[in-house]
């Protein structure tokens, strides 16, 4: 079973009178445990594709399914449930809830899943340790660097034991040192937990590190290369 199946998906955005074909009949299969980078110029549809795979938006035509579940048959509540249990998100920025500490940001999703308090704390801390943030549990996002914030986001996306992580330019706001170590962390998680990663990037170093590189252009897939 494929982790992600995208078939013939198109997405058109209308802004005023202008129609933008953000995705044009995109088809894509990703297997469980893959580590996929999506590259392509700005406006080529990377974010749109990730949002659709995450069920944050719905396609105008075509089908998407995650872990064998077809989105078109699911209610918005089902989709929320799917995101909560199967999919982790890392956004380019603004990933964290500002009033929560690092630990609480990670813990929160476990509470939404109904995990008990003790286990929540334990798992949240272990995950923060894994991404290299031991001892920074009680910091608010404003007290963390951009790289550290992204790590918290990665920890948050992983702590709920999802099968797929969707990351939209996770290293875009980071310098090369921080970017590299975050990427390192992601790879470790991929190997350790067999979590599927799909992430968009402009960063050559990140493309280099991926095991499969998909290139997009004008809302369509222009290249798909497995290393």
């Amino acid at each position, binding site marked *: 079973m494929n982790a992600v199946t995208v078939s013939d998906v198109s997405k058109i955005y209308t802004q005023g009178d202008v129609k933008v074909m953000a995705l044009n009949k995109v088809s894509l299969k990703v297997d469980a445990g893959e580590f996929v980078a999506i590259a392509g110029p700005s406006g080529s549809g990377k974010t749109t594709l990730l949002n659709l795979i995450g069920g944050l938006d719905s396609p105008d035509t075509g089908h998407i399914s995650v872990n064998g579940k077809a989105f078109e048959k699911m209610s918005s509540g089902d989709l929320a449930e799917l*995101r*909560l249990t199967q999919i982790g998100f890392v956004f380019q920025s603004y*990933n964290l809830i500002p*009033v*929560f500490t690092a630990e609480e940001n990670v*813990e*929160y999703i476990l509470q939404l899943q109904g995990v008990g308090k003790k286990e929540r704390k334990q798992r949240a801390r272990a995950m923060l340790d894994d991404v290299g943030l031991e001892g920074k549990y009680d910091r608010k996002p404003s007290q963390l660097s951009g790289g550290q914030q992204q790590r918290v986001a990665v920890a948050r996306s992983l702590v709920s034991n999802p099968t797929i992580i969707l990351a939209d330019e996770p290293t875009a706001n980071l310098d090369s040192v921080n970017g590299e170590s975050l990427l390192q962390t992601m790879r470790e998680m991929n190997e350790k937990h067999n979590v599927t990663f799909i992430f968009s990037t402009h960063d050559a170093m990140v493309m280099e590190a991926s095991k499969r590189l998909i290139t997009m252009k004008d809302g369509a897939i222009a290249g798909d290369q497995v290393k």
Partner: protein
Amino acid sequence: MFTQLAWRNIWRNPRRTAIILTAIFIGVFSMIIFAAFSRGMADGMVDNAIDNLVGHIKVQHPDYRSDPDISHRLPDPNAITAELKSLLPTGAKITPRIRVEGVVANARETAGVEIVGIHPGMEMGVSFIGDAPMDGRLIEDGDKNGIVMGAALADRFQTEVGKKLVLTTQQADGETGSRAFRIRGIYRSEIEATEKAYVFISYTAAEQLMGEKNCATEIAVTLPKEYRNGRLAPLVQKCRDALEPYHVSVNGWKDLMPAISAYLAMFDAFLYIWFVVVFIAMGFGIVNTVLMAVYERMREFGLLKAIGMRPSWIVRMVLGESFFLLAAGCAAGTICGMAVTYYYGHAGIDLGAFAQGVKMWGMSRVIFPAIEIGDVVAANAVVVVLGLVVSIYPAVKAARFTPVETMRQN
């Protein structure tokens, strides 16, 4: 953590929180103060009215109220009094009176008045005359020719303590009878009309004036505090049943003074209208604040939805924030409101400056604000429940933000 999140969100903008808390505080505070003040005013009015020879329960001939004539006197007042004593709780004061219409005259003036024959000792704490301020003194039991009149009437008659008055009225046998009395005292009342309405003589003197022994027209009962409101009706019914054989009418004060009862009912309605009016002013503030707080955090709600938070949970979270604000504001408003009322409930508020106008309405000069738990609960319930209701709109707005749109707004 829902609670934590809601709680911390409140403190993200302390200034805004302070403003809204103040608004809620002032709203609840003013509701309680207003309620207590008007209750105090109403209580004072009721007490005055009851003091005015009404009492809490009254036994009369069934026709006396429509035609207050000596022919409509009570059959066997002694037996009825004895019966009442056995029925009523200890602490109840029972006193018979002879009340008839008549004419009072001296050399200069004549006036229509109500002649009231009383047992002076038994009126203490029962009606106003028992402890009214007085020039001279109150008549004594068995005083055969003493009379007490009101200051306003005495002014008109240009008379004073020690002078003579003549009372004329219809006697028990239907003949007209007259007797001369000497003024023992001139009483003052808070209400001028009262001073002009009643002259008091002893029960014995009234019997003589009527030419009939034991001709009480009413038996008035004053009850201990705890029996005056909720527990009154069953007590009245009990007396009614027991006194059935005498064919008398037994009424509680609410039946005796229908105008006042109607006023009290209307007053309740006004109070709740006032609550809602205060709330409407406050409600706009609440909606605005919550809406602002929600729009500021659009991205956050988008994020929460993206990580799998259901819209209904977001609604719950926003309502939780409102609830904290409402509860805190209400608690502060209630505590301060009750403290202030408690203080003035003992000290009283002197309306001396408006005394002239106040007198006309049968109100007391000094008002003792009275807290009723029901009012406090109602004020709080109105604010919290309606506060949550108006917060539903911003909460639903927050739940509707879609992740994709909010995330794009960098």
